[in-house]
């Protein structure tokens, strides 16, 4: 494989690029075939009695070893190779690499789960994370390619002049990439520990090894060819179980085309379940539980004393009556498991109360799958307000995710690696096509799994549930737990708690496929997380080494020195990110979404106006980026519970127009545009040289007629 990645720039460019592409086609065809053979061989070995632990280990070692191998073969110290893969990645392959770069652990594992739990509202992620590519194609990719440097702060620095815009760009790029990369490494740890049973922290560092060998040795060049390999693994891993489940339920192998009918059945079943007497019984029990807890929370101190007295009294009574030792030990545990003091009692009961309240709602608190927005536009005033608010937040979230997509530096950077403006345009098309394949499958998967849960699990005697229910409960009770609340021995929907992350990871088992497919799915998730982490780490290291060190501190640094510094920084950033991830920070999902709002507010207005409006000035761009980023940050800190905690904000939460903190970018982006436009009008126009630069990026090849 090594030969195919060698430099071919010296020869005639067009001819060499064509030959290079043909060579790549051959390599990746062999690779895909080899991968299938590998999976089939493992399946055969499983039938011959290979244990699950071994299958997990083999998948882990084989895939990480493969990515590391590509990294070693693509090692380089040449700046153009290290930063932009020599600018000769064909459009199709850059599309695949962008797909893998883009689809993170959240897309692969989390999205179908979100869709399962929230139905229509989850589609905001599907639309937002694909529609953003329209903005990439129309506003950014071809122009950035023509500009043709190495990073996004590069563009800000040259277009707006001076170090301030570049510095803000570096800061914003690191802010959004770092929060994002922590989440990816966390995902790597989670999957590795699931796949092989090693400890979470060890899993984090194992995965990190795979990431580092690749990006450390070969920079963008190694990352690109690894990402293509990872895309192939992840798309195969995602499709096989869904297709299988579809065949099982409908005898038709294209789930995306026919799950509409499954959705109809799910909706019909939802109506039945909402009024089912057994479900109502369970919900009534939870309602009482919530009421009891509300009562207790009025005076937690007294309630805790009363609970303690009652539990101890019961223990004394049992001992006096010489009850069987099992009953006594249960009563002892009841005493010892009581909250220790008033504060912890209050916290625990508040949590339990919220849970019980959710579970007293129809369908286990999930909205009907096909219902657009909560509330009712024709209902009373409150229902109307709920409806308007829910719709407004849905649209705001789409807006933030789309603009954020078009502003994340690790994605935009990929379009520097193609040979020409023409290929940059085609490459965005391929990127979206490859992303589309997974994104239009995720909603199908969610509906198929819901159908399975509603028709196979619900109403089944609890001791006859399929084996995967118990095995996932053992892995992590927060992903799957069942309590027979009304003691009828039969499962009701509200008696089951299911975590979103299980949906993709358990599909293979739900469909009754052999364990090797479960291993394959986990390997796919790993590929998704590793590929995104690769791209992000590279973005951070390049921002520091290329933009901060080379452009701002030591412009005379030699190429070799810059690449070396970049590699050292990469290692350090990766270790810091792994350290943060190993602490299992709270609310990691929120951090990921926050990265989109930050990127949107910081980069989008400055980049787009920089290309489309010659009059935009440097000082205006700096102020616009600061204002956009500032207001987004301010809104999140004052409204998001976890950030409020971190920054010690105690003022009451005041939502603007009811917009949730996750969509804070909806304020930052327009403000950024307004500030840049207004300030540009009152400052002196950019120099002739800058105006020439804008003209330069607007035309693929500006030449004398």
């Amino acid at each position: 494989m090594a030969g195919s990645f060698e430099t071919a720039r010296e020869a005639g460019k067009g001819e060499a690029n064509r030959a290079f592409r043909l060579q790549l086609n051959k390599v990746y065809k062999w690779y895909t075939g080899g991968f299938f053979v590998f999976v089939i061989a493992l399946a055969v070995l499983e039938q011959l009695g290979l244990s699950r632990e071994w299958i997990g280990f083999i998948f882990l070692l084989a895939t990480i070893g493969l990515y590391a191998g590509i990294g070693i073969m693509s090692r380089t110290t040449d700046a153009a190779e290290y930063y932009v893969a020599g600018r000769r990645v064909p459009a199709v392959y850059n599309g695949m690499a962008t797909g893998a770069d883009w689809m993170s652990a959240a897309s692969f594992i989390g999205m179908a789960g979100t869709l399962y739990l929230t139905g229509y509202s989850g589609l905001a992620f599907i639309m937002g994370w694909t529609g953003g590519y329209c903005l990439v194609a129309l506003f950014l990719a071809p122009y950035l390619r023509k500009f043709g440097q190495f990073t996004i702060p590069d563009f800000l620095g040259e277009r707006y002049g001076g170090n301030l815009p570049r510095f803000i760009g570096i800061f914003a790029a690191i802010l959004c990439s770092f929060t994002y990369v922590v989440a990816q490494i966390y995902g790597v740890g989670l999957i590795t520990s699931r796949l092989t049973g090693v400890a979470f922290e060890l899993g984090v560092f194992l995965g990190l090894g795979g990431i580092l060998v690749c990006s450390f040795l070969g920079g963008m060049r190694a990352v690109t060819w690894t990402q293509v390999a990872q895309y192939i693994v992840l798309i195969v891993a995602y499709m096989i179980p869904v297709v299988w489940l579809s065949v099982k339920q409908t005898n038709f192998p294209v789930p995306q085309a026919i799950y509409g009918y499954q959705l109809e059945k799910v909706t019909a079943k939802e109506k039945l379940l909402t009024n089912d007497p057994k479900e109502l019984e369970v919900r009534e029990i939870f309602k009482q539980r919530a009421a009891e807890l509300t009562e207790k929370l009025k005076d937690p101190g007294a309630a805790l004393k009363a609970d303690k007295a009652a539990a101890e009294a019961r223990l004394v009574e049992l001992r006096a009556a010489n009850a069987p030792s099992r009953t006594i030990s249960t009563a002892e545990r009841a005493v010892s498991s009581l909250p220790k003091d008033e504060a912890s009692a209050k916290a625990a009961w508040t949590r339990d109360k919220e849970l019980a309240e959710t579970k007293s709602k129809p369908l286990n608190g999930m909205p009907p799958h096909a219902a657009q927005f909560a509330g009712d536009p024709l209902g009373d005033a409150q229902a109307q307000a709920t409806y308007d608010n829910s719709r407004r937040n849905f649209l705001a979230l789409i807006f933030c995710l789309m603009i954020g997509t078009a502003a994340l530096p690790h994605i935009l950077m990929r379009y520097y690696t193609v040979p020409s403006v023409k290929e940059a345009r085609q490459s965005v098309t391929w990127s979206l096509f490859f992303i589309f394949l997974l994104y239009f499958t995720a909603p199908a998967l969610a509906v198929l799994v819901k159908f399975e849960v509603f028709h196979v699990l619900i109403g089944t005697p609890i001791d006859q549930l399929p084996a995967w229910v118990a095995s996932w409960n053992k892995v992590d009770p927060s992903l799957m737990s069942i309590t027979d609340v009304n003691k009828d021995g039969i499962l009701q929907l509200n008696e089951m708690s299911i975590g979103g992350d299980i949906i993709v990871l358990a599909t293979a088992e739900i469909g009754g496929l052999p364990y090797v497919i479960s291993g394959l799915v986990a390997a796919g998730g790993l590929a998704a997380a590793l590929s995104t982490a690769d791209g992000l780490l590279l973005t951070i290291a390049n921002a520091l080494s290329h933009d901060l060190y080379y452009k701002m501190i030591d412009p005379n640094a030699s190429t070799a020195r810059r690449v070396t510094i970049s590699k050292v920084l990469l290692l350090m950033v990766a270790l810091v990110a792994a350290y943060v991830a190993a602490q299992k920070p709270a609310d990691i999902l929120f951090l990921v979404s926050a990265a989109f709002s930050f990127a949107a507010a910081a980069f989008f207005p400055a980049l787009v106006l920089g290309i489309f409006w010659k009059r935009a000035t440097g000082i205006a761009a700096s102020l616009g980026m600061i204002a956009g980023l500032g207001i987004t940050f301010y809104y999140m800190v004052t409204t998001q519970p976890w950030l409020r905690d971190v920054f010690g904000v105690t003022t009451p939460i005041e939502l603007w127009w009811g917009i949730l903190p996750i969509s804070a970018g909806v304020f930052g982006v327009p403000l950024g545009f307004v500030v840049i436009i207004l300030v540009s009008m009152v400052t002196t126009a950019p120099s002739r040289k800058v105006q020439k630069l804008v003209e330069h990026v607007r035309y693929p090849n500006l030449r004398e007629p």
Partner: protein
Amino acid sequence: MLTEVNTVELTENHSLYWRKNLRITALLLAIWFVVTFVVSYFARELSFSFFGWPFSFWMGAQGSLVVYCLIIGYYAFYMNRLDIEHGVEELED
């Protein structure tokens, strides 16, 4: 190493090219806006059955994605042709 900016003066042909680019960009952006925000805004009203899906659900899950792909694909096709028409295409050497 600063970007090498050439000193070619823009001609009428060049500004025509840019105006056409802006026009197609605006048109495609309008389609993008309708498919995304207008359809989602009226999602509740647009819930007639479409091969089993409520129409707006299908649009959110598949229809809009297909349109996005077509928008980008058409833009690439149109612009690559426009480059040649106005003599600003890249030459392979």
